[in-house]
């Protein structure tokens, strides 16, 4: 795998590829994931879900279910306090506790197929399931509203009675939660200055994060009101905040123990099973484990929005973009909160464009409440823009990567929503792809085509805490609150080892529960190696500071007279008698020099934009003209990754995101029937890529250091998912002459487009005769 190094590697540990410290547990089956906990007397919880997309709950009767032997408790929304309606800042997200609570257990109305209505705890999962069938719910079905287009029509059925937006005013019930707009320059003048203007319309489907581990939580409730929940989550502190709000208990009374997590991709940044397991535990006095089946995961947890998008872009014949207009409506699902805002903030931010208008709408529909999915909002948004850019490049006859390079954002470019970019690597990334062997190779053969596209994601910062403990034998442990979803323990240990001058296997990384480390935001937004890494770096520096103080005391000098390099403390030769001591030697003397050395740090690194990342991708496809099936022949992704701490796991992020982007492009979609019931609730029909569907995924790491991080780290986890759908659409065009503007580009949809294309060509040929 190619690594394009801009950063001069002056590091000893950073940039190497050690075995991850938690690896052994994970290849031997010993690591404990969410569903792997068992406690004495533990009961099993199951959730009853709505069969309707939209209905009023008239009554719920569960006496029969309660009488079934083995059933211990049943809960409904009546067991939850009525939460506050006003949106509140909870961790890094704005959430209305009321909506959150209504999503955990429906109150009065169900808003999607699969919406939880009640939950049972019983001595076995089978008994709990039998009990669900004995619960009688009387529903009054209402007309479902399944798309943003339908939901925005005047007179559309209203999902949430008290939902209002500023534009429509306080008296107008609506399904539009928010309208966001970014403006710059003079749009009309910009389009007038263009030689070529293209306007197109796009649609993308609802897709799921598709983590392989279904949600699972075990709740334990003590009679003194203190409780513990073991759960698979991307953010233990987020769970603590959200769950205690929903349960109406003091935040400090809940301890959240994060299990190993079997994938999340943003989908495990909220709560589902946690409050239910806790409620059932409170009611029964026993530990209760609540796990979801795959169909529950698909029906009722975090997909990301399908969107409707209109894109209009103008360029001069030299290739300068003069104006761009983007309109997007995002389906939020049952409650407000689609990734529309980050979609609008990223959609065209890779380019430096003088005249802009971006409109975004967050619209509720009768689908599950959406949750973050890798670079939330950006992939669907980029599909339209990156496809139109490809058309424009073709029209004016320039290389599509040159068009991007020519207009690319760089240090000093102002983003549409305000901030100015610091050092970024968009242009370097496009240039690296342009120089790649893949892009310069010849693609031959019928029905084959090559496409490129780019993507942007700002990456999050937020808050993290870390502690570094030095043991008496001179080894160290690093404690953070960031769950390890893809190898971050390795990066944390490496950063500490780098600072302390220790070999990597003498630093043990630990992921702590919410009682054992300071507040730390979710493992999401590509923020862990950046922000938690920064906290670890600072905590290790705190250790170094203390080591110097100890040495200074022993040598009767000031800490400023002591240097620390690669694990060795020395007096500064120019000032004093030379003295030296290794970290290990000093550690053995902690007991006589002031006790153990504990380094601590916490950081608050700001919100979005902590270390902007860009990706560009080149993909070769072959289209089967008889079936419409697209085979990916070759794919190369270049990404601006900042300093790569552990290059293998950085490559892994690029590869995994690319694979998800390919699935989004070609196969994945939620299929609802006319009543709004989800028809593909299993992994056979919700078709994610297998290793047979994919080629090797080639990566180019472009290391443009992030100036806001002491080691130059940028988040690397997300942006790779953004460009694949557009790149594949562009490749399909080169292979077939057909422009696809709807995702997924599945065989039936592509077949239909090919057929129409052939018909119109025949029509033209006939007319020409």
């Amino acid at each position, binding site marked *: 795998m190619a690594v394009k190094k801009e950063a001069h590697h002056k590091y000893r540990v950073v940039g190497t590829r050690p075995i991850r410290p938690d690896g052994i547990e994970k290849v*031997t089956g010993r690591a404990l994931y969410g569903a792997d906990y068992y406690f004495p007397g533990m009961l099993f919880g199951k959730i009853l879900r709505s069969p309707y997309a939209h209905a009023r709950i008239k009554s719920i009767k569960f006496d029969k279910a309660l009488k079934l032997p083995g059933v211990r408790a049943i809960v409904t929304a009546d067991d939850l306090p009525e939460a506050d309606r006003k949106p509140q800042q909870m961790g890094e997200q704005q959430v209305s506790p009321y909506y959150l609570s209504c999503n955990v257990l429906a109150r009065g109305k169900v808003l999607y197929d699969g919406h939880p209505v009640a939950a049972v705890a019983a001595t076995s999962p089978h008994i709990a399931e039998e009990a669900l069938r004995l619960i009688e719910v009387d529903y009054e079905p209402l007309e479902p509203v399944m798309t943003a287009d339908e939901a925005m029509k005047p007179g559309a059925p209203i999902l949430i009675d008290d939902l209002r937006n500023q534009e429509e005013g306080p008296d107008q019930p609506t399904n539009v939660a928010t309208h966001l707009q970014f403006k710059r320059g003079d749009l009309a003048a910009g389009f007038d200055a263009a030689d070529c203007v293209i306007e197109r319309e796009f649609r993308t489907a609802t897709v799921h994060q598709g983590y392989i581990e279904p949600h699972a939580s075990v709740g334990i409730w003590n009679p003194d009101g203190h409780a513990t929940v073991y759960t698979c989550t991307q953010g233990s502190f987020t769970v603590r905040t959200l769950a205690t709000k929903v349960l109406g208990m003091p935040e400090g009374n809940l301890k959240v123990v994060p299990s190993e997590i079997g994938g999340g991709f943003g989908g495990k940044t909220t709560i589902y099973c946690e409050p239910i397991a806790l409620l059932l535990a409170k009611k029964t006095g026993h530990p209760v484990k609540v796990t979801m089946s795959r169909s529950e995961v698909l029906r009722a947890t975090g997909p990301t929005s399908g969107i409707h998008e209109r894109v209009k872009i103008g360029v001069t014949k030299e290739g300068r973009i003069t104006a761009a207009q983007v309109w997007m409506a995002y389906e939020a699902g049952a409650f407000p909160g689609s990734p529309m805002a980050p979609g609008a903030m990223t959609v065209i931010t890779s380019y430096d464009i003088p005249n802009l208008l971006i409109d975004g709408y967050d619209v509720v529909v009768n689908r599950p409440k959406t949750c973050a999915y890798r670079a939330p909002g950006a992939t669907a948004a980029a599909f339209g823009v990156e496809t139109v850019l490809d058309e424009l490049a073709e029209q004016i006859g320039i290389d599509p990567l040159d068009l991007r390079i020519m207009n690319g954002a760089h240090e000093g470019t102002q983003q549409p929503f305000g901030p100015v970019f610091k050092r970024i690597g968009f242009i370097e990334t496009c240039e690296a792809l342009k120089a790649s062997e893949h892009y310069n190779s010849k693609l031959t053969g019928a029905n084959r085509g090559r496409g490129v596209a780019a993507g942007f994601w700002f990456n999050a910062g937020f808050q993290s805490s870390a502690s570094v403990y030095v043991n008496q034998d001179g080894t160290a442990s690093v404690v953070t609150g960031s769950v390890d979803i893809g190898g971050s323990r390795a990066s944390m240990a490496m950063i500490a080892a780098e600072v302390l001058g220790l070999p990597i296997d003498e630093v043990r990384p630990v992921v702590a529960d919410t009682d054992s480390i300071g507040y730390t935001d979710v493992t999401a937004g590509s923020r862990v190696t950046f922000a938690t890494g920064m906290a670890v770096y600072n905590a290790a520096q705190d250790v170094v500071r203390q080591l110097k103080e100890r040495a200074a005391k022993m040598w009767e000098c000031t800490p400023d007279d002591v240097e620390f390099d690669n694990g060795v403390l020395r007096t500064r030769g120019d000032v004093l008698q030379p003295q030296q001591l290794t970290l290990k030697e000093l550690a053995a003397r902690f007991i006589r020099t002031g006790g153990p050395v504990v380094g601590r740090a916490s950081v608050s690194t700001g919100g979005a934009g902590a270390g902007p990342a860009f990706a560009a991708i080149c993909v070769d496809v072959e289209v089967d003209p008889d079936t419409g099936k697209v085979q990916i022949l070759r794919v190369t992704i270049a990404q601006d990754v900042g300093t790569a701490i552990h290059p293998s796991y950085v490559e892994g992020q690029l590869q995994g995101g690319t694979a998800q982007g390919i699935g989004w492009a070609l196969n994945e979609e939620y299929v609802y029937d006319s009543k709004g019931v989800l028809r593909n609730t*299993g992994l056979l029909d919700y078709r994610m890529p297998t290793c047979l569907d994919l080629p090797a995924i080639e990566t180019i790491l472009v290391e443009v250091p992030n100036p806001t991080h002491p080691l130059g780290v940028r988040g690397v986890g997300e942006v790779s998912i953004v460009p694949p759908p557009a790149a594949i659409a562009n490749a399909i065009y080169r292979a077939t002459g057909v422009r696809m503007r709807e995702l997924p580009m599945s065989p039936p949809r592509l077949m239909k487009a090919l057929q129409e294309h052939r018909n119109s060509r025949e029509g033209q040929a006939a007319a020409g005769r």
Partner: protein
Amino acid sequence: MAKRTLVETVINNEPVELLCEPRQSLLEVLRDELHMTGTKEGCLTGDCGACTILVDGRPVCSCLMLGVEAQGHKLETIEGLATGAELHPLQRKFLEHASLQCGICTPGFLMSAKALLDKIPRPTEAEVRYHLAGNLCRCTGYDKIVRAVLDAARESG
């Protein structure tokens, strides 16, 4: 409660007697009855391969088999893949190639890959991709998994 049945089986070379309900899947028995949680659940419908174990040497989705069907068969699970303190070459190669991110799919992949290498010691890349197509990984894009399996084959072949 449904009546429980006595099942005699062999798991990772150890004879095991267990009681289970006829309606319990083998996966459920391994996890809920024996607390052998290395075998994972991803779907319960045979689509993800996270629950893959070997039954008489053949890879099987343990979610599609009943516990009572284990009677008289030899089962191999992830917990038995390493020999004592020594990792199986596949386990070692998965670690060296960074073939796992979250790791939830890893036990299933390792068992499927073991079945493959037991049958075809030096598979081609196409054969590896074909034989592992029943295992889903959402994190890695498979690249590093395929490399690890090919490398393990190269080393032991």
